[in-house]
Every structure is written in structure tokens, then in C-alpha cells.
């Protein structure tokens, strides 16, 4: 082994050498990191798809903007004008109080006698059904609409959207909790892996300390080792998650229910950028942190 005098080359060289010195524990670290990333990837994909559904349904059906019951016809028209002025709004369809009553009658069908007497005293509010051109701005636009005078409330016109949004939030929370737990476990396991290398090289570390190496100089090769394991893990995970997702998505897309709803799933290619970014950051972060933790004891000479 000849010394490389190039600093960057030295770091990468040492890091790689360490990775392959303890194959077993490197394997264990790789596995736990891959597990973390794959589970995270599955939930991320689930969340992306739910968001996609929500947007799809919103764009098909729009959101319903209810107007204050006391508002006059002019004020109602004013609200409509203002909504149309907002950027990103595609179209508005007005539903008068009468329309609302008729719709309610249709929904109740055989029990429509329940609504008798409401013709004179209509309690149903007038509303606009608003569709968007750009769905990514949906929440922003809804925000602006809610600030318009005489707007009472906004609901997504379909119950499924509400359910889906709730589901999406649930998935987000679960993803978060799982992520935190798995990251902690990963850091612990990777720090043990690095500890083996550090232990095997404690003699070298003590020599370095006596010669006057700074802690950072000693620490970096080990941090690089952790980061290399992290990058490997993210590469393996992205391949596995990509394959798994594409396979599952194909089976799901062929299912009756999906075809009837005319919904397509998000393709893996569309998610690739965000997933790879998260994976690489996660891998490098976990690797580096694990190394720093494992080094602490050995630097006290």
C-alpha cells in the first residue's frame, strides 16, 4: 500500500478500504439502511398516489364554495366575479338555492317529503363549483377564495376527497413515525459497524494522535466510510423500490375498481427525483452521524 498524498483521494481510498474490511457488519448496516429506505419509499409512494387521486378528483369535480345565506343576488354575483379573477381558476358553475334543494330532493328520492315546506323557506345555501387549471395551487386558491366577502365555507364536493385527504395525512404521520424510528435504529447499527473499523485501527489512531493529527483529520475517513455505505444503500433501495413499485402498480392498474374510476397511478419515473434525493440525503446523513457517534470514545487520547 502506498500513501496517496492527495487529500480527497486519501479520504475516498481509506473510506472504501474500510467498507470492504468488515464485510459482515457492513452487510448488516446495508441491510438495515435498505430496510429503512424501502419502507420509507413504500409509504412515500402511497402518499404520492393518494395526493394524485385527490388532485385528479378535484380537477374532475372541483371544490364547492358556499355563500353566506344572507347574501343578496348582487353580492352572490360579486363573489363569482372575484373567484373568476383568481389566477388558476378554470371555471365556476353557479348553483342557486333552488338548485341545491332540487339536488337534495334527488338524493333523498323516496324520502323527499322530508323537505316539504322548504320551498318558501330554503335553508340550503347557494354555491359555486370551482375547477382549477393548476391543481398544485389548489390549497393556495382555496385560501384566497375563503378570504372573499360572503364566502361561508369551502368543501371538496366529494366525500371521497375528504376521506382521501384524511388518509393522506394519516399516511404522512405513519411515514414520519416509522422514519424516525428506523433512522434511529440505522444510526445505532451503522455506528456499531464503524466502531469495528475504528477499534481495528485504534493503534493507528493513537499513533496519529501522538504525531499531532487533529481530530477532524482522524475522523473524516470514518465519516466517509459511513457515507459510502449510505450511498450504496440508497442505490440498492432505489432499484428494489422501483422494481417493486412498478410491479405492484401494474397489477393495481389492471384492477376493476381503478379502471372504473378512470384513475392512473403515478409512475415511478415521476417520483424518481424526489425519492433519490431523499434516499441520498438519508444515506449520507445516517452514515455520517453514525460514524461521528462511534468515534467519540476513541478520540480522547
Amino acid at each position, binding site marked *: *500500500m*502506498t*500513501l496517496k*498524498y492527495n487529500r480527497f483521494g486519501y479520504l475516498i481510498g481509506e473510506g472504501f478500504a474500510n467498507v470492504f474490511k468488515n464485510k459482515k457488519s457492513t452487510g448488516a448496516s446495508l441491510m438495515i439502511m435498505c430496510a429503512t429506505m424501502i419502507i420509507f419509499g413504500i409509504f412515500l409512494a402511497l402518499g404520492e398516489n393518494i395526493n394524485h387521486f385527490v388532485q385528479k378528483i378535484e380537477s374532475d369535480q372541483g371544490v364547492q364554495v358556499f355563500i353566506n345565506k344572507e347574501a343578496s343576488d348582487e353580492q352572490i354575483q360579486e363573489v363569482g366575479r372575484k373567484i373568476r379573477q383568481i389566477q388558476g381558476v378554470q371555471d365556476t358553475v353557479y348553483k342557486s338555492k333552488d338548485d341545491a334543494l332540487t339536488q337534495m330532493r334527488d338524493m333523498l328520492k323516496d324520502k323527499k317529503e322530508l323537505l316539504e315546506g322548504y320551498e318558501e323557506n330554503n335553508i340550503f345555501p347557494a354555491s359555486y363549483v370551482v375547477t382549477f387549471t393548476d391543481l398544485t395551487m389548489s390549497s393556495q386558491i382555496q385560501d384566497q377564495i375563503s378570504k372573499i366577502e360572503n364566502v361561508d365555507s369551502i368543501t371538496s364536493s366529494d366525500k371521497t376527497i375528504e376521506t382521501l385527504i384524511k388518509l393522506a395525512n394519516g399516511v404522512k404521520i405513519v411515514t414520519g413515525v416509522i422514519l424516525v424510528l428506523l433512522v434511529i435504529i440505522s444510526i445505532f447499527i451503522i455506528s456499531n459497524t464503524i466502531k469495528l473499523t475504528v477499534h481495528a485501527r485504534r493503534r*493507528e489512531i493513537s499513533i496519529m494522535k*501522538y*504525531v*499531532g*493529527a*487533529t481530530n477532524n483529520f482522524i475522523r473524516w475517513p470514518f465519516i466517509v466510510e459511513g457515507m459510502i455505505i449510505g450511498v450504496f444503500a440508497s442505490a440498492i433501495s432505489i432499484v428494489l423500490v422501483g422494481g417493486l413499485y412498478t410491479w405492484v402498480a401494474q397489477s393495481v392498474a389492471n384492477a376493476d375498481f381503478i379502471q372504473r374510476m378512470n384513475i392512473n397511478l403515478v409512475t415511478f419515473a415521476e417520483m424518481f427525483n424526489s425519492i433519490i434525493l431523499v434516499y441520498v440525503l438519508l444515506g449520507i446523513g445516517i452514515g455520517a452521524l453514525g460514524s461521528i457517534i462511534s468515534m467519540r470514545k476513541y478520540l480522547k487520547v
Partner: protein
Amino acid sequence: MIEFRNVTKKYDTGTVAVQNANFVIEKGEFAFLVGTSGSGKSTLIKLILKEEEPTSGNIIINKKDTTFLKPKRIPFLRRSMGVVFQDFRLLPDKTVYDNVAYAMYIVRATPRHIRRQVPMVLSLVGLSGKAKMYPHELSGGEQQRVALARALVNNPSMLIADEPTGNLDPDTAWDIMNLLNDINLRGTTVVVATHAKDVVDQMEKRVIQIDKGVIVRDDKKGGYDFEV
């Protein structure tokens, strides 16, 4: 150069390893630290290297009080002193040349400087022809020479040797001691902890003797032990 002022070191176990030590080793001096094992010799070395903190008192190295030195500055203190140990502490998978070059690399010397300095210091310790060999291919004396070359390569102002001849046969031990003397003659302060009695007796250098943590003798030109 190295000054101990009322230095006491008490370990957490309750052992008092060094008690109220006072001495000054001047620039360019050659001093032996003698004492039986467990006398506190090693602790003195560790205190100089800032591997251990004194419980009380002050240690001044190169006119700087190191007692309150920040941990971050310790590497820079150590760069002013070369260290050799009884067990050589060479890296087995690196050649003689690389073992020495490594010490320069760590302090971020330029490749040019390394290429010039390493052969020079190897010739100083008489190992020019063995640069490409590995530590296991060398004798004990040669390994200690490599360690000395490594300690000297960054031109430290002092050399600290902890039992440098402990693992060597008497003839080789003498070679190493003579080499230390040569290094001292070139202007480097040399501190040698040892219990090689005959060497100390014959070299007639300054002797600081420590017994049960107390400095019992400090002679300008002493032997190992007057009482015996």
C-alpha cells in the same frame, strides 16, 4: 523548555502517581527520567504529552502554560515534540518510507517537502537502504530507528522517548542511545524515560529520579542510582 511547577497527579482510583514535582529541562538539554516501574515515570511522560491532565500545578512547555490548553490545541502542542515508545508503534502495512511520510502527511506537509525531508531523516537514522521494507522485515533496533525517524521528521524542538530500549538487546540499545545523543547534539531537547541502569551510568547526563511519585534526585551528571 519543559517546566513542572508543583505538579501533582492523582488518578480517579486514588493513586497519587506524581506528587508536587518541580523541575526545569532547558532547551537543548539531554535528561534521563529514571525510576522503577510504577514509580510515576510514565505519568510524567503522559503529563508532558498532555495525555493526562495534572490534578494541580502547572506544566509549561516552550514558554506556554499547557495546563489550560483547549483540547483542540493539543494536536498543535504535540507537533512540537517527537515521541518514541518501547513497542515502536509502527504501522505494519506501510513501508518504512510511508511510516515516516505519514507523520508529515498528517500535519499537511506539501508532497514536495515530504519527498525532500523523508530521505534526509532516514539517512540520519541510518536506514537509507531500507526505505521500501516493511516493519516486520526489520530487526527491533531498526524498527526503533524508523520510529525515531518518524518522531523527528517534522523537526520537533524536543524528543520524548518512553523506554526506547526496553525491547532491545544491550548492543542495539547502545546504538539507539548514541543516536539519541547525536540528535541532542543537533540541538533537539531529549527526554528519555528508562531503567537501563548501565546506559544511564555511562552516559553521564542529567538524571531525574522519581520514586513513588516523588522526585527524589535531580543530578546534572548522574548515574542511575547513587545509593546502590
